[in-house]
């Protein structure tokens, strides 16, 4: 299994802040990686470095290419959806399909038209007439018809209603993703992606604070619901986080023996959002 992305000592400094601080990571093929972090943690900077949209220091290898020097070649293999509303407002559906079909060597026009047929989009429609959800549908139809090896999604469902959001990730999973493709997604709507992720990366203040696959996370982090009388004993084990629900305490533990915790109360796997909140405690303080 070869790595799609290898980053070593990646750093990026803006005038008065550090966006990436000596970051190293590796992303193998066939994974769906969630890059999760608070606002301003460096997520977008990391993605921009991978896409060759910004300069940086350190080593970065994407699909065997250097995004700084071989960007034009790299973009044949990489797709990205940056945000809603980045499609130009004057563009028509038919023009978008024509244009991408003629400039992208790996674009499958029939596939794209099949995706579009499942939406309400018509060929003569302009982007400025579409709702946010429809714009994303068009963008997704274009991107899914490209046989790329790496897809990067930066807040792809920002501002969409829940129907569009669910449909977006469902389409990706059913019609796009396979073992030869890799998807990196950043989002604040963690609950909606956590079921599709295979890997999780938490980033905070330009540093990667957690980098693990989902199975390992299930083993490492455990949530226990403990009755009030045993709370002191649980606290003694140094939980990451504690919160109160219905008179009981819920503790989140990192790397504590499962059997120990099972003795204290009901054990379950923490949700990514709870894990995130616990890990990022004090970020804005």
């Amino acid at each position, binding site marked *: 299994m070869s790595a799609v992305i290898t980053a070593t000592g990646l750093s990026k400094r803006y005038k008065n802040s550090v966006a990436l601080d000596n970051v190293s990571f590796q992303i193998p093929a066939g994974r769906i990686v969630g890059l999760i972090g608070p606002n301003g943690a460096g997520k977008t900077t990391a993605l921009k470095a991978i896409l060759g949209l910004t300069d940086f220091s350190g080593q970065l290898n994407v699909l065997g290419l250097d995004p700084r020097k071989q960007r*034009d070649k790299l*973009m044949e293999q990489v797709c*990205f959806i*940056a945000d809603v509303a980045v499609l130009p407002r004057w*563009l028509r559906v038919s023009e978008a399909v*024509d244009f991408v079909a003629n*400039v992208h060597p790996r674009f499958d026009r029939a596939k794209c038209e099949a995706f579009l047929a499942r939406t309400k989009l018509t060929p003569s429609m302009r982007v400025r007439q579409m709702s946010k959800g429809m714009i994303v549908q068009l963008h997704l139809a274009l991107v899914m018809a490209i046989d790329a090896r790496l897809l990067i999604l930066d807040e792809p469902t920002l501002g969409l209603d829940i129907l569009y959001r669910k449909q977006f990730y469902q389409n990706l999973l059913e019609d796009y993703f396979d073992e030869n493709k890799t998807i990196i997604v950043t989002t604040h709507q963690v609950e909606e992606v956590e079921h599709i992720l295979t890997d999780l990366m938490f980033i905070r203040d330009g540093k990667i604070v957690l980098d693990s696959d989902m199975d390992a996370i299930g083993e490492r982090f455990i949530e226990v619901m403990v009755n009030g009388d045993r709370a002191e004993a649980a606290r003694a084990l140094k939980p990451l986080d504690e919160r109160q629900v219905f008179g009981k305490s819920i503790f989140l533990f990192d790397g504590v023996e499962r059997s120990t915790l099972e003795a204290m109360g009901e054990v379950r796997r923490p949700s990514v959002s709870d894990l995130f909140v616990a890990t990022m405690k004090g970020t804005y303080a």
Partner: protein
Amino acid sequence: MKTFYWLVKREFWEHRGGFFWAPLISGGVFLVLNIMALITGEVLGGRGSTHFNIAGGLNLNGHLDADMLGKIGAGLDIAMYVAAGLVLMIMAIIVFFYCLGSLYDDRRDRSILFWKSLPISNRDTVLSKVVSATIVAPAIACLFGTCAGLLLLLIAAFTASLHGLNMWQLLMNSHPLMVAINLITLIPLYAIWALPTVGWLMFCSAWTRSKPFLWALLAPLAAGVIVSWFGLMGLFNLGSGWFWKNIVSRMLLSLIPGGWIRDTTPIDNEPHDPSVLLDHIGLAHNYAALASPDLWIGAVAGIALITTAIWFRRWRDDS
């Protein structure tokens, strides 16, 4: 090559209004105004109140000698050039603003991220915009300008025929085909001449974080004012007029069609003979501008600015 063709096509899609409809409409408006003027002339002349005639007060009684006919033919040719020139002027204004927005608008609305998600080099993107500004837009404007000129010619000849002149004889003495070919073959010269302005505007468009119009206009004007002021103080030997003519105006006004004429040797002007004036517009006279260093220095500066714009397009990071 295929990608480049589609890039140019994309520019046309985006700016259909400016590149296609604006010259079409301005040509149409010009024609309508002329027809209105001709009708006014006919009506006033018909009333016999004054001897008012659009055809230039010619006493039209059907007998014209060859010399006179030649002059009328040349006059008609000039009318065609005027029609085309008007459309081209409108085009120049549109292209000015097109260049200013070309590398800025998609940064502002962030659609640059979509274009940059496709395997297109920044060099091709920028060059496709240069070609759109210097070749595509002028070619379309020439086409509509020539059409407007031809229609004007027909209308003028028809009006003349109402006054007893032979319409076909007039038409045979004008040279619509030559006018059209002249205009089209001037496009390459126009492209070279316009490079410094196109380059400067696109440089501003690629470089500025906001308000490209202000930068593009104020920087050369302020430089001109400063040079003039120092000139006033007697610090430079070169007159400030030189600076305004060769730097400021080349940076801002080179899109004006026919600007290169000032670099060609003037022909003695005989205002009463339109065929002499016509020589001014002739191909050979225009292309004599190729001999002037001004044209080439400007082109090199333009190319340098465009190269810088490509660099900024690649590395400007403000999304």
